């Protein structure tokens, strides 16, 4: 399970791998936060949402759409609410549509180094490997 940065001329790209789909989604989130230099506050701070939990329910046409929607949800919380979402109990439910269900602990952001404009679908494909799943995600920065 892990992620690593892949060279890209203008934007940022991550190679992500994990033994299962929830793991892949969580690693992608960790990688995206690391690229942005997002760090949560250690202390509770004054943010009204600090420590609260949020239920996540997201839909997508397929696994890739769901991954983009999930990461876009985290980006929105980061930019608009100044929150880092620490996601747990993640379930990925295939179907029509695919669904993601999980819980997120809301952590106020202490530091954010880089703005990510968007999560793209560029050449996005979640592949099954002998060890689980892998994908490459390109972010517009």
């Amino acid at each position: 399970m892990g992620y690593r940065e892949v060279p890209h001329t203008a934007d940022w790209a991550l190679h992500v791998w994990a033994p299962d789909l929830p793991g892949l989604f969580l690693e992608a989130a960790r990688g995206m936060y690391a690229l942005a230099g997002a760090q949560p506050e250690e202390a509770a701070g004054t943010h009204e949402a600090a420590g609260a939990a949020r239920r996540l329910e997201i839909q997508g046409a397929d696994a890739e759409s769901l991954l983009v929607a999930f990461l876009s949800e985290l980006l929105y919380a980061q930019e608009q609410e100044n929150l880092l979402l620490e996601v747990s109990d993640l379930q990925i439910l295939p179907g029509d549509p695919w669904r993601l269900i999980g819980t997120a602990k809301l952590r106020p952001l202490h530091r954010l180094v880089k703005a990510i404009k968007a999560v793209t679908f560029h050449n996005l494909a979640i592949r099954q490997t002998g060890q689980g799943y892998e994908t490459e995600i390109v972010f517009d920065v």
Partner: protein
Amino acid sequence: MKLKDFIKIGDYEWEIPTSFRKDMRVPVRVFASEELLLEVLEDQSLEQAVNAATLPGLVGRVLVMPDVHQGYGFPIGGVAATEYPHGVISPGAIGYDINCGVRLLASEIEYEAALPYMDTLATLLNEYCPSGVGSEGVVKVSAGELDKVLREGARWALQQGYATENDLQRTEEFGMIEGADPSKVSERARQRGREQIGSLGAGNHFIEVDVIEQIFDPRAAAVMGLREGCLAVQIHCGSRGLGHQVCTDYVQSFQQAVKRYGIQLPDRELVCAPMDSPEGQDYLKAMRAAANFAFANRQLLAHSARRAFEETFAPHFKKGWQLVQVYDIAHNMGKIETHEIEGRRVKVCVHRKGATRAFGPGAPGLPPEYQPIGQPVIIPGSMGTASWVLVGTEESMSRSFGSTCHGAGRVMSRAKAKKDIRGEELRRKLEGEGIKVRAGSLAGLAEEAPQAYKNVDRVVETVSQVGIARKVARLRPVAVIKG
């Protein structure tokens, strides 16, 4: 892809024929010297251009500008025209930062006389023009007011006292693109927009003070108000989080639309919908709303820059510190235009992603003073290097859907730039060259270092040699403000 895959049309023109890949609907035409082309072949830019050549409804050719670099889906520096109304519109071929663009304002203050005050100017610009990750704007607007911004763009700013009629006259689409519908913009996008209007953001966006170093076309420069040795200001930014969210929303929803319309594509980022479909119409209306937001955003930043100029120079100079707008151009946009293509007049949607509209003399949509000379085109260089003012030509109208390049174009990945270049060292180097730097993030500064980009002079030389723009003036940076 290799050099042998191209047909050489001329010293600065190359073509990838449709025989290169069976799903190509039109050829790809690349404007580049052989040296630039060989550099471009080192990343995936031209594979992305070939992918773009599969979009349904394309006419003419997919065009690639000399500042091209790898993007996502569609290359940065690409132009594609689809026939209106049955051809498609592709949000990914316009980009997340809808109506990212550049505004140029000129003063009559001579740089030599301004030297003692440049530190103050840089500090005030940095103070009055909010920048950086998550920066909030100089004004906050209510939901109802935001609707007006989305419909009226810079014209809204005029009503609020942040613009002059001359600013609007000298803005692409006169600062307000028709056909915007705020109801097609999601609530999330609107929330992001309300807090960010009048802010620069981060990344490659900047405000730069330049000195007009050399004039190549005195007549055009005089019409534009560009005087050798005087200060000018460039503002480079776009539609901020509102535009990013609009594109995110529609790229996501178009994943289903392509299935409904039976469209096969080599890359999911190129998803599209026919312009005459409900999905295509909704995106067009939302994209125009985001474009209007960007026009208003740059207008507010121009207002802030004027305040900084006035406070810096008015106590010391009797006149000349007023910033007069030269022009404001978009370089990420989809526009419905009519062009002559293979001998017939065709109404098309010109997708320009990292490419600038460059209308020639007499083209519609230009203010009266620019009708004889053509539309001003602003080409920002990389930080610390030259920028250019060009004009559109008759050649650009007949050969490139009235389009030309948009900047220097990256050659080095952000990861490598971050690894190889120290932000503090770069800041010292720039300051040593007489460039005042105000940067929120030294890591961000390093990523935008001059060595991460192509030489803008070579890019401009190429479009000039091809004839799809003509040189007017070269600018040299003297202060840079970055998030």
